[in-house]
C-alpha cells in the first residue's frame, strides 16, 4: 500500500523513506520557520491591538488598561476640529484618487506598447517612488510659497497628493495590462467591434479590477500621508494625520489621540479588505469570462 506523505510524495510501503533528505527538511513541517513567522506576526499586530485596547480605557493613562469605557470616542465625535480635519482628509483623498485614477490609467495605456522615449517615461514615473518624502515636502513648500504663489491648503495638498500617488496607480494598471491577453481584443475586432466598442466591452472590464485597486491605493496613500502634507496644510485646513501629529507633539499621546488613531486604523483596514475582496471577485469573474471567450 502506498502512503501519501504531507509533501505529496508517495512512499512505498516497506521501503524506508529517504531519511537523509527528510532530516534536512525538504518535506518535514518547518517548525522553526513557522515559529519565526508567528513571532513576526506578533510583532506586526501587537502594537495595533494594544492601541485598540487602550482606546477603550476608562482612565487617562495609555500604559495600563484599567477598565472599559467609550468616552474617548464620545469626546472625539464632539470635537469640532476633528470633524473638520476628517472632512478635509476625506475630500482630499477622494479628489486625489479620482485624478490619479483617470490620469494614471491613461498613462498606463500609453506605456502599453513599445515606442521611442518609453525608457525616459519609466524613469520619470519611478521618481516619486524614490524621492524621500521629506525632500518632496520641502520642495513643494518652497515651490508653492516662493515660485507659484499657490496658497497652502486644499489646492497645494491636492497637487502634492496626486504627484506622489500617480506612479502607484500607473504601476498597478500597467502590470494588469501587461498580463492581459491581446488576442481577446483582436478577437473583438475580428468579430466586427469598432475600437471604441472593443475598448468598452473587452478591454475596460478586464482592466477594471486594476483600476479599482489603483484608486483604493491612491485613496489610502492620501488618507494616510503625514510628512508631505505637514508642509502644505494652511490655517484652518489641516488633514487628520497632521492634526494628530500636532496634538501629540504638543501634549504627548492622549487617549483621544489613541482613539482617533484606532479609528484611522479601522478605516484603512476596512478599505483594504473591501479592496482585496472586490479585486479578487472581479478577477475571478473576468477570468471566467476570459475562459469562456478563449477555451484552451
Amino acid at each position: 500500500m502506498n502512503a501519501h506523505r504531507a509533501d505529496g510524495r508517495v512512499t512505498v510501503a516497506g521501503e524506508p523513506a529517504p531519511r537523509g533528505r527528510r532530516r534536512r527538511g525538504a518535506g518535514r513541517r518547518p517548525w522553526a520557520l513557522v515559529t519565526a513567522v508567528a513571532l513576526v506576526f506578533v510583532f506586526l499586530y501587537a502594537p495595533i491591538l494594544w492601541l485598540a485596547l487602550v482606546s477603550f480605557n476608562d482612565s487617562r493613562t495609555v500604559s495600563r488598561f484599567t477598565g472599559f469605557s467609550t468616552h474617548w470616542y464620545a469626546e472625539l465625535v464632539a470635537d469640532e476640529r476633528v470633524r473638520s480635519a476628517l472632512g478635509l482628509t476625506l475630500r482630499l483623498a477622494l479628489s486625489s484618487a479620482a485624478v490619479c485614477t483617470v490620469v494614471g490609467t491613461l498613462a498606463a495605456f500609453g506605456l502599453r506598447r513599445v515606442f521611442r522615449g518609453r525608457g525616459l517615461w519609466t524613469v520619470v514615473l519611478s521618481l516619486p517612488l524614490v524621492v524621500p518624502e521629506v525632500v518632496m515636502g520641502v520642495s513643494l513648500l518652497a515651490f508653492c510659497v516662493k515660485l507659484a504663489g499657490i496658497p497652502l491648503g486644499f489646492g497645494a495638498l491636492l497637487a502634492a497628493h496626486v504627484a506622489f500617488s500617480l506612479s502607484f496607480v500607473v504601476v498597478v494598471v500597467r502590470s494588469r495590462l501587461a498580463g492581459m491577453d491581446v488576442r481577446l481584443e483582436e478577437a473583438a475586432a475580428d468579430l466586427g467591434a469598432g475600437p471604441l466598442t472593443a475598448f468598452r466591452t473587452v478591454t475596460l472590464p478586464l482592466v477594471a479590477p486594476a483600476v479599482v485597486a489603483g484608486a483604493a491605493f491612491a485613496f489610502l496613500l492620501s488618507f494616510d500621508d503625514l510628512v508631505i502634507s505637514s508642509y502644505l496644510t494652511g490655517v484652518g485646513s489641516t488633514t487628520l494625520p497632521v492634526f494628530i501629529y500636532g496634538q501629540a507633539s504638543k501634549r504627548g499621546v492622549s487617549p483621544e489621540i489613541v482613539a482617533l488613531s484606532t479609528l484611522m486604523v479601522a478605516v484603512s483596514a476596512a478599505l483594504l479588505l473591501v479592496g482585496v475582496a472586490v479585486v479578487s471577485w472581479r478577477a475571478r469573474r473576468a477570468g471566467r469570462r476570459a475562459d469562456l471567450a478563449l477555451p484552451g
Partner: protein
Amino acid sequence: MARRRVPRWLSANLLLLPTGLWLALFLLVPLALVVQYSFATRDTGPLRVVLPWTAQAYRTALDPAFLPIFGRTLAYAALTTVACLVLGFPLAWFIARHGGRHRNALLAAVLVPFWASYLARIYAWKALLDGDGLVNRLLGAVGLGREGGFLLTDGAVVLGLTYGFLPFMVLPLYVACERFDYRLVEASYDLGHGRVSTFFRVVLPGVRPGVLAGSLLVLVPSAGDFVTPKLLGGVDQSTFGSVIDDQFRGGNNWPLGSAMAVLLMALVVVVLVVRGRRGEDVL
C-alpha cells in the same frame, strides 16, 4: 487593432502627457528649485533667500558638526534594512513556499498593519516602550527592564523604522521567493551541502533581485524619515531628515535645508546608479 490613424509614438505620448505635465510641475520644478536654493544665501528676514550663487550652505552641511548626524542617519538606515531582511525573509519564504491557497490572505495580513496609519503605529510603540509601558514591565519581570523605559534610545528608533518599513521588504522578497526554483535547494542537498551552506550559496543568490529591491525600498525612506526619530527618539537621535525638517519648518535656514535635501537625493541617486550599472531594474 485594425485601423490606426495616429502614429504609435504620438498616441502614447498624448496618453502620457497629463502625467508628464503634473509630475513636471509638482515634482521636477520643485526639486530644481531646491537645488537652486541650496546655492543661495540666507537673508536677514524670515523665509528669505538671496542669490548670488555660493557654496556656503554645502560648507555648513558638510561641517564636522553635522558629521555625527550623517553617520547616525546612515547607521539607522543600514540597521533598519538588515533588521527588515532578517524579519522579512522568513515571512516571504513561508508565504511563497507554504502559503498554498492562503498566499493572498497571508500577504494581505502583512499589509493590513502597514496601512494602519503610520502615525498610529508610532504612537502605539510610544505607549509600549514608555517607562510604564507593557514592554518595560514584561522585561522588568525577567530583570531586563530599563529605568525610564526605552524611548529616546537608538534602539527605539531602529525598532520604529523597522516596523514602519517591513512590508516594503516583504513584498519584493515574496515575488523573488515565489519565482525561486525550489528544486535547486534539493539539488544542493543531494550534492552534500548543509542547510547553512545551501542558504548562502543557493537561496540567497537566487532571491537576490528581491533582496536588492527590498533593501532599496527600505533604505531610502528610512534614511529620509524624520517622524520616527522625532517621536521615538530625542535630541541625540536627530537624523538627516529631522535636520532638514527643522531648517524648513522653523523657517530657520532654507539654503542649508536645501543643501541637505540635495545631499540626501545624491545618496539616493548613487544607490540607483550602482544598481543600474549592474543591469538590474530600478524597481
